[in-house]
């Protein structure tokens, strides 16, 4: 079985975004983990693809250290200005070059939360796909996979034949922390770094960033618990429009 896992390096949004600390997108980490779980003890291959600046190599090493087999790195200093559409087009042209059975992506990236690339890539490749997967298993016959996805109301269980594409939620698993051995092995694994010209035009772009309007700090209700509760309910009755 050959997995292709699309990964991205993103700013660490849990901390100070301006710190410049970059991490493997959490949803992609879950995609790598899912591939590792499905290939455990088999001679399957997990190939990574990343589009990003030279410095994103660190993120590829991290995923290799988790246990992926090999990687291709499309090196572009301008990848930040590529929108989901042009990223998906570039990934699709690479997919046309290689063999795979299952393509995994994160369901969105932690920085832009756009969630488009996976579905776009599936459409380019004309693959059956599922998004927002929280569970992934082989069908008994290994000629397809069973995906559990989180839908609007409840979880949907789908069967997909191979080849197919799945986008993964971080609710699917807890990605492993690379072991020391994994980190050492990753240093020997090959990263095929390719400079590339982005020739697909982005149809969308970011004009600027703004700070969200700050909310007033909460009015903290004081006194004995009964008094706090009475004051709260009074406020709810007067202000919520629900009563």
């Amino acid at each position: 079985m050959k997995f292709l896992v699309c990964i991205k390096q993103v700013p660490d949004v849990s901390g100070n975004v301006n710190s410049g600390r970059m991490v493997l997108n959490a949803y992609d980490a879950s995609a790598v983990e899912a591939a590792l779980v499905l290939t455990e003890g088999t001679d399957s291959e997990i190939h990574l693809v990343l589009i990003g600046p030279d410095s994103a190599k660190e993120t590829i090493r991290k995923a290799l250290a988790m246990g992926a087999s090999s990687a291709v790195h499309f090196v572009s200093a301008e990848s930040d200005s590529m929108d989901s559409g042009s990223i998906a087009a570039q990934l699709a042209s690479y997919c046309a070059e290689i063999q795979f059975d299952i393509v995994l992506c994160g369901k969105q990236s932690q920085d832009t939360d756009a969630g488009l690339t996976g579905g776009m890539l599936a459409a380019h490749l004309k693959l059956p796909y599922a998004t927002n997967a929280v569970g992934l298993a082989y069908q008994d016959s290994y000629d397809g996979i069973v995906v559990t996805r989180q839908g609007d109301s409840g979880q949907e269980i789908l069967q997909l034949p191979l080849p197919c594409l799945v986008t993964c939620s971080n609710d699917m698993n807890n990605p492993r922390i690379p072991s020391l051995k994994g980190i050492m092995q990753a240093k020997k694994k090959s990263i095929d770094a390719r400079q590339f010209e982005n020739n697909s035009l982005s149809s969308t772009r970011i004009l600027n960033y703004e700070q969200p309007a700050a909310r007033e700090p909460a009015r903290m209700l004081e006194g004995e618990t009964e008094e706090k509760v009475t004051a709260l309910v009074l406020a709810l009755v007067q202000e919520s429009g629900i009563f």
Partner: protein
Amino acid sequence: MGKILVHVGSQGGEAKRSSLEVLSHVSRKIAGSDDVVVACVFDVNPGRLEQTIGEYGADDILMYMDPAYESHLNGVLAAGLEDAIRATAPSLVVFASSESVKDILGAIAVNTGAAVLPDVVSFSAGSGFVEAVRPVMAAKSLARVRAEGELIFVSVRSGSVEAIKNPKNPGTTTFEAPIKPADLKQQLKEIIKAADETVDLSEARVVVAAGRGVKDEVGKRLVEELAGLFGGGIGASRAVVETDLFPATAQIGQTGKVVSPDLYFALGISGAIQHVAGMSNSRMIVAINKDADAPIFEYADYGIVGDLYTVVPLLIEEIKRHK
């Protein structure tokens, strides 16, 4: 701009509130121009759809009525939408950003050659372009974005615009599903609904959300009872979903759902940005947490520092006295 197509999400013949917000917004924006709003809806039976969609301001309705739409399947919905887009030739297609829409938006953008701005909180359209604002970095920041093209898709976060009636008498055309589940390579095997999921979370006017501070069945019953007083939805943080006390469908936040009720209770939730990303659009936020320094109080309108196991029972009694 000519024609604007609005996708109306529905279930069992009832339009979703988030879609009516979008429809109403578009309809009011184009008032006085030559532009036309066409709604498309995909369901099994028409129910009250025609009437509701007319009330919220569609000029025309494309009703795709077919057993194929009983359950969500991306290939089936995508083919229906692509058909509606071909039939309408719009310059702009607007969606409410539900899980079903997220599932197909990228694919249909590629198949129709559209530029797409997902999950926006506001937008304005001109000839050949749309400018919009969308939360990024787990809603820590807002990006002003621009799309250009002959066909542009925009999906709008629930609660971003208002659903105000703007009645019209739309013409209706009915279609069958162009692609049925049996035509697809993938198969839907089963849908697992959580037993306690009676109210649609993203539609609820009141949401009571539980965090890791809710530790057991006793706490869960408090959450249910409080929600029950308002006919509200039950939400959850990722940490409490991981304890299996609440279903994953209830998760609110960056990974989970985005909700924007009139009233949001955060019970035993610390207020991590990934959670806040899914609820900070709520009109009124009440936080109950035993830690006075919990970040959730920075987002709340009212806060009570205390043990939810003592505060919530009193709260339930006090609310009952006012009902």
